């Protein structure tokens, strides 16, 4: 269907007389409003889930792919010597942009979430960690492992692939599920509106017959119903999406403590998406009611 703005404005500004030909309905109107609001509320969360897992997958896929860790386990006396040796090896390895040993405080900070802040970490045989940042091309992990094994016996290279890949896979799958849920929510809303519209059309058979008798075209009759349901779905979805966004804003922040985890929510321009939900809801209601109305009208003389 070609998009024509004048059609949309004409639809929104349709004369009140045309609206009044369909009798006002109390209860079903509220039901439509309510289901639209609920669906929009759920859609906000499905959307947030999709976008957040999308961010997570990107992050784990890109940023972490360019880092690796070397862990050195050595008796206390040899720790400094082995660390220095490992750093030398790393500095002469092609593909390594930067290598830096974490100091005691940083290591303590990493362990704090698990052991609590008061543990006397200095007394424990904690391995030393070296953070390795790769260049764009990356390094050859097998070659580096061999060199480290020869020169620094206590060093273990972890290039993160082992745990990163399943996480990225899981995040991508979760994102897919999120989008699929959005699709289902849209379809369920279409189904609900269709049921409500069919009920309204059936309840107004006499109105439709009278209108046909006095020469109303199908589009005039359909519009009275379509307008009503579209506006209801739009209004309900605004309320639902608003509440959903409020709930997301009230979620506790996970960015600081979670470190590499991303908060479930919208970031930056992604806040546009929940605003789109009411428009999509209105679109779904428009199409569903229009279809239902034309199907019903087809069988009226």
């Amino acid at each position, binding site marked *: 269907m070609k998009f024509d703005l004048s059609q949309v404005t004409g639809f929104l500004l349709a004369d009140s007389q045309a609206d009044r030909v369909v009798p006002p309905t109390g209860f079903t109107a509220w039901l439509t409003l309510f289901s639209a609001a609920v669906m929009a509320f759920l859609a906000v969360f499905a959307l947030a889930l999709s976008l957040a897992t999308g961010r997570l997958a990107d992050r784990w896929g890109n940023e972490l792919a360019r880092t690796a860790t070397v862990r050195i386990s050595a008796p206390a006396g040899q720790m400094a010597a082995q660390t220095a040796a490992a750093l030398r090896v790393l500095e002469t390895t092609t593909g390594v942009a930067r290598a830096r040993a974490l100091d005691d405080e940083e290591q303590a900070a990493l362990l704090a979430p698990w052991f609590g802040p008061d543990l006397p970490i200095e007394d424990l045989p904690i391995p030393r960690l070296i953070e390795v940042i790769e260049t764009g091309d990356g390094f050859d992990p097998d070659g580096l492992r061999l060199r480290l094994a020869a020169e620094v016996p206590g060093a273990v290279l972890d290039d993160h692939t082992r745990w990163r890949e399943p996480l990225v896979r899981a995040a991508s799958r979760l994102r897919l599920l999120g989008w699929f849920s959005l699709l289902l929510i849209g379809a369920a809303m279409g189904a609900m509106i269709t049921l409500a519209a069919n009920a309204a059309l059936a309840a107004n058979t006499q109105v439709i017959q009278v209108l046909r008798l*006095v*020469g109303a075209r199908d589009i005039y009759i359909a519009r009275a119903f379509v307008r009503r349901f579209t506006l209801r779905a739009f209004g309900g979805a605004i309320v639902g999406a608003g509440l959903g966004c409020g709930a997301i804003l009230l979620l506790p922040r996970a960015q600081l403590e979670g470190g590499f985890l991303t908060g479930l929510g919208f970031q930056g321009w992604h806040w546009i998406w929940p605003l789109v939900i009411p428009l999509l809801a209105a679109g779904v209601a428009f199409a569903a009611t229009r279809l239902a109305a034309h199907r019903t009208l087809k069988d009226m003389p």
Partner: protein
Amino acid sequence: MIELENVAYSYGGGELLAEVSLSLSPGSFHFLTGPSGAGKTTLLKLCYGALVPTAGQVRLFGQDLREMERDDIAMVRRRIGVVHQDCQFLDHLSVSENIALPLGVSGRDLLAEDANLRELTGWVGLKERAAALPPELSGGERQRAALARAVIMSPDVVLADEPTGNVDWEMSQRLLRLLIELNRMGKTILIATHDLALIRAAKTHVQARVLRIASRRLQLAGADL
């Protein structure tokens, strides 16, 4: 204006009308009579496109009914005023809004037609009842409101199905006078009725032709009435 040519109509069970030919010319006045269940209402429905004949041809203002889209039929109905036996209204709108309904659905400017609407409401004697809701009206008032609604678009043809079925003799005379007046203004009138007294009363005022449905055929009744 409305032409039926060898039209037949059958319901699921059997044939109701057969070999019906009829031509309503401008300004003519017809009565359609026959026993109950003979097919008077069906014949009227064929005349405004609510039913499609099972055989034969119906032409409304020169267009073949079978080739008409739903929108074409809607357009034709703006030129044909219909008064049903059990007239239906939009029960949540006032009488006056119901009478103006055809103007609204055809996109006419209601404000511009306001004087016209008042005059018409007065003409059918419903001035005092204009703000009432249809369920509050008596049978005769409903018939008159339906008649006003049927003629507000100034249609070329008025089809009335037992317009006097639910009203007393005096009221039926009044309705008949309104229809005769419309005919004098040049409208084509077709009234289905089984009330022979009404036909006799009309014949003293207007040159009316009487059609009778008997054993599925349409016949022109003679001067025997």
